[in-house]
């Protein structure tokens, strides 16, 4: 519930995690936060729904529908407050399994007599001949069938739609640019270029604002209920990094406004004053997504400690790339410094990617990483590494060596880095969601 920006998902007084269609904005954050993949978008309402234990029935003293209908009374209600409750008795007498206890959700759905294979989605796969009674679609995530740890096959399961796709990957890149460009702008002020209010103030400020706007548009467009965007502010759940992120983006936007204003009135003093705060806000803008992804408890790949430094160096690389592209068009200050820093940021990114890929992983993360490096996201990942890291590093190194071609090489390097970054982000976003949870 932490991730839900509007508290549409909430814990009811009786302990059930319930939802409210009227306040859901359809951000799908909860779908990534749920380690059981138990949340879905209701196509009638475009809002997130889940089993709420039929709380509207419980409220009037009725058992949930699945309990009532079950021919063999195989579904029972545990009432922890009723010492005479039959299911509670079973629970106290026998050791019953739960799903994904390592997620720390203290689950209250217990399975009696269930085989491990039916509770661990990583150890059972849909084979090539599909499901027993239903079609298999790309929305049926499954471990690769050559996975070594498989102990059973999945013969029936439901679809789980990948919720965050290109718009989210795009948002990561546009936000990195919006943040990174201002890192360089602030740096230029600190390096003494504050008097170039047009190129240090106006151009990066405008670019930053533009990409921040695109970031905002992508965020809103990704909502299943975009017209309810304002609820993030009016009903904001402050423990949600979606809400905190919105605040950060908002404050950052204000600071960019100040920066642009300073540039327009050609006040190098104001730029000097703003440089450090703007850089800090840019870092917050770049980095907060690590905490947002961290709230996505269902996506262990995104729980990585590498994500925060990764987002920061990516922002620097993205900012550098745009700076160098701008350099071709308008001639920006200190391109060589920017080249060096960008090479550094790209190299750091590369090291972080290596750490991500070759680090110690839980089975879940290992499967997600395999999806990136060898699985369905392989092409995106390779494009990200080759086009987004290696090629730009080589081109930028070339630009440092060959003065005459420096701007052109930097331009190509910047463009390649940005495209590659999107490709990598996209592989990362999709791979994170590729691991079946139920």
């Amino acid at each position, binding site marked *: 519930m932490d991730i839900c920006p509007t508290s549409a998902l909430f814990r009811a007084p009786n302990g059930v995690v319930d939802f409210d269609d009227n306040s859901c904005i359809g951000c799908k954050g909860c779908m990534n936060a749920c380690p059981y993949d138990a949340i879905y978008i209701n196509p009638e309402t475009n809002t997130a729904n889940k089993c709420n234990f039929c709380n509207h029935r419980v409220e009037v003293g009725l058992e949930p*529908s699945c309990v009532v209908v079950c021919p063999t009374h195989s579904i029972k209600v545990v009432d922890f407050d009723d010492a005479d409750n039959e299911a509670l008795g079973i629970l106290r007498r026998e050791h019953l399994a739960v799903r994904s206890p390592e997620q720390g959700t203290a689950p209250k759905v217990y399975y009696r007599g269930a085989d491990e294979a039916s509770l661990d989605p990583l150890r059972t796969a849909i084979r090539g*001949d599909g499901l027993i009674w239903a079609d298999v679609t790309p929305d049926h995530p499954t471990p690769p069938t050559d996975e070594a740890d498989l102990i059973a096959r999945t013969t029936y399961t439901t679809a789980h739609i990948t919720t965050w796709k290109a718009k989210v990957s795009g948002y990561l890149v546009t936000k990195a640019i919006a943040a990174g460009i201002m890192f360089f702008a602030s740096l230029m002020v600190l390096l003494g270029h504050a008097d170039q209010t047009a190129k240090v103030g106006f151009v990066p400020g405008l670019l930053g604002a533009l990409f921040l706007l695109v970031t905002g548009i992508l965020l809103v467009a990704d909502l299943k209920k975009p017209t309810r965007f304002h609820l993030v502010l009016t009903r904001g759940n402050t423990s949600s990094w979606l809400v905190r992120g919105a605040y950060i983006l908002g404050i950052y936007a204000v600071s960019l406004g100040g920066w642009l204003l300073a540039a327009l009135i050609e006040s190098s003093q104001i730029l000097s004053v703003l440089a450090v705060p703007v850089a800090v806000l840019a870092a917050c803008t770049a980095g907060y997504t690590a905490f947002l992804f961290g709230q996505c408890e269902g996506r262990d790949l995104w729980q990585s400690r590498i994500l925060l430094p990764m987002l920061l160096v990516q922002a620097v690389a993205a900012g550098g790339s745009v700076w160098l592209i701008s350099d071709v068009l308008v001639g920006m200050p200190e391109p060589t410094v920017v080249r060096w820093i960008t090479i550094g940021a790209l190299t750091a990114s590369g090291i972080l990617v290596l750490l991500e890929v070759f680090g110690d992983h839980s089975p879940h993360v290992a499967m997600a990483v395999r999806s990136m490096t060898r699985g369905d996201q392989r092409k995106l990942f390779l494009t990200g590494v080759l086009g987004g890291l290696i090629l730009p590093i080589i081109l930028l190194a070339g630009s440092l060596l060959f003065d005459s071609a420096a701007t052109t090489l930097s331009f190509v390097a910047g463009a390649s880095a940005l495209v590659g970054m999107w490709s990598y982000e996209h592989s990362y976003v999709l791979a994170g969601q590729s691991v079946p949870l139920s």
Partner: protein
Amino acid sequence: MSDTSESRYLGDDSFYKNPSPNAGLTNYPPHDQWHNWTELDAKAWPQRVERHYRLIPTTCFNCEAACGLVAYVDRDTGEVTKFEGNPEHPASRGRNCAKGPATLNQVNDSERILFPLKRIGERGGGDWEQITWDQALDEIGARIRTALLEDRRDEIMYHVGRPGEDGYTERVLQGWGIDGHNSHTNICSSNARIGYQSWMGHDRPSSDYANAEVIFLISSHLEAGHYFNPHAQRIIEAQEKGATVICVDPRLSNTGSKADHWLPAWPGTEPFLLLALVRLLLENGTWERDFVRRWTNWETYLAKTRPDLEVKFELLERALLDEYEQYTPERAEYVTGVPAEQLREIASVIGAHPTKFASHNWRAAGAGNLGGWQTARCLFFLNVLTGSVGTIGGTSGNGWNKFKPNAPLGAQKIEHWNEMSWPREYPLSYHEMSILLPHFLNERRGKLDTYFTRVYNPVWTNPDGFSWIEALLDPSKVECHVALTPTWSETALFADYVLPMGVGSERHDLASFETHAGRWIGFRQPVMRRFAELEGKSIDNDSRTHEFNPGEVWEENEFWMDLSWRIDPDGTLGVREHFESRSNPGKPMSVDEYYGRIFAEEVPGLAEAAAAANQTALEFMRDRGAFAVPTDSYLPYERVVDPASVEDCVRDNDGVFRKPGTAGLFDGSEEAFAETSLSPLGDGSPAVEIDGEIKEGFPTPSKKLELYSTTLADWGWPEYATPTWIPSHVHWEDLDLDGDERILLPTFRIPTLIHTRSANSKWLNEISHRHPLWIHPEDAEKLNIGENQLVRITTRLGHFVIQAWRTEGIRPGVVAASHHMGRWRTGQDQGRSWSNGRADIQNDGTTWELSRRGGMDAYPSDDPDSERIWWSDTGVHQNLTFAVQPDPVSGMQCWHQRVRVTPAEDGDSYGDVLVDTAKSREAYLEWLSKTRPAPGPHGLRRPLWYARPLKPTAEAYRLS
């Protein structure tokens, strides 16, 4: 809706009497609040929006179990919001499988047929015009009137799929005086019926699972068996108490996986396995000697099979051990593939739990195999040996646990014999030889003037569907075909009239089934009609259910009433009097009067219960939907009979009291033909003397359990008079298993679908729409069939193409695909039904080809869900490629197929079906030649004591 509140979780304790979840939840609204029940709207939640309902009970119309449903009718919108279980129902006890609540889909299906349709253009051409019900009734009524006037009674045929009702329509046909009933029994249960009936007279088992200690299932009862929901409840209940569950199935069904023993015997060897258990019980001495002595016809057994022995009970064990000498566990291991040790273990478990052995076979091995009727016969042998017949925890006969009240309207005697349904080649068939109808028409044994198919889809469901299409396309064979159906079916496509009939909540019916140790009667009712009545609309003798149903959807009861009226408007045919109201003479009897009289007069205990509730019996049933008929379920055959009541009887040498004028004393004389009246069940002998006491006994000729069936012996099958194994037509030793020959199991059900009846349910078809061919990986390797690869299955008539699904959950040597999928339609927009793929049918002489034109797609309709269809598979229609294979004794279609399994060939596409109907004829004639035709003793067409729908007069049994 009312009282919209913005707040969530007010914790307002005053709202309901019992609002606190911690005070314990209840499963159903208390019955006294059903007329005014308030719940909170699920979609509006957590806002508290109240919905005010009337809860109106009815009965599910999907599978045969007839579970109770409760319709929640919103008092503000006047619409059914949902169906839940009926806690008042003694069998289903408020619980349901997926198919019950899915009734809502069937009511609201955007493609259901709402108006009567009449064909324009060629039959099967797909063009229809909407007509009025008046026109339909007039035209069809006139046809039937003419046929009756011209004494072409056999040309009127009512062909019913699963009836889902008890007796109503049979009485209609009796009212018309025709032997025109045809059923689906021989694609379903003939073998099981004759297996059970040959022991105890009752043709269905009624197992007391809840109290059993050993449960032996030749079925997949936990997911799909006959009466799946009521049975599964009780099987699991017993298992929780420690019962051992044994399941015989070549396929690892859900039931197999829940069982303590899963025995994947070779198909058709099940009787061998069971007789090996019989032999072990005898060898171990763990059999109930006294029960067998008292209640089997062992004297006849010894006298007939062992003339060398004295007729002494002590010698029975020796005679049985001699008869079953070859059925050793080791031999059984070879024949069935089930390890000898496991059989020994199971025999010791069975032997340790006398009188508490509950068993069941209905379809499965029974329906699959030539001689499959011996499966039920050998299975029930275990009940007999363990004394578990009609005991607490044993298996009883359906007749004791099913309640069928008398109708309040009379009927004509049926004085002729319809050979189109009851051909002389099959004197013992249970029941009509319906699968052979197209072949009989083809041989010009007769023609049909008016042929009703009623929620019956033989083109799709029966074997040899292209022969059905050929027959239905020929107006000289079928002059007029009337399809009574809620939805489009492959058969309705070839009708002249398509008349829309109601689904489970839109019709009146009575149902009662032997689901457990107890008797009940369930009432299906049109819930919107009842709702209108409760809301104050007056319902009188002229009211009709269609006024309250969607569109112009009728209910069958009123259709038959009004049709009968038009057949005989002036009463000169002697038909009308059997449909006339008693309270409103000159008018047809209304459903209220019909059921009101039954409930008030014919159901023991009901009038008293209603009086106690201060209601009429009809109101009582309309409010509850079901009634537990008081009964003493156990040991009914042990009931003592008053000697005074058998004073007019003749006591024969075996102690049976035989009543003059019944089949028990039939001697073939002219007087006997003229004067014998036939009982629905048994030969009319009321009692038998056991150890000096006069007892009710069993409805068999011997009044005992028939270890030796004199009827089978006398009617041409002496070698099968005792429980025996008959090698199946798919017996594994006869197959080229080293080559590509395998056994195909095409019959099994899954829990979420029910034949073609559940097609019009979006929920059910979203859950299941694919049925790949189960094949063991060993077989797949041998036959070069990869994962998901297309496979060509070649049958005697042709072939079909399906996808492989490699699984260890099936015995090597056997392949299987559920029969549920493979539905098709020929038009673009008609009968998509969430499950039916578009098909092209090509015909050239006797060659027929069906090919798929894509699968299921999303499409726009009144229901937004039709645009959300995400699946495309619709399966493969297997049954088209199966020949008719009627068991020569029971008439059962022997469904298992001897097939060749090969990788698909060039040009094969998924779902292709190719059939040569000339080969159908060859197969028909070959299986026909296995029969031993009537006449039997006394020149009869059929044993007089055998059950039969519309039992005619004894005279009609005479084969002249």
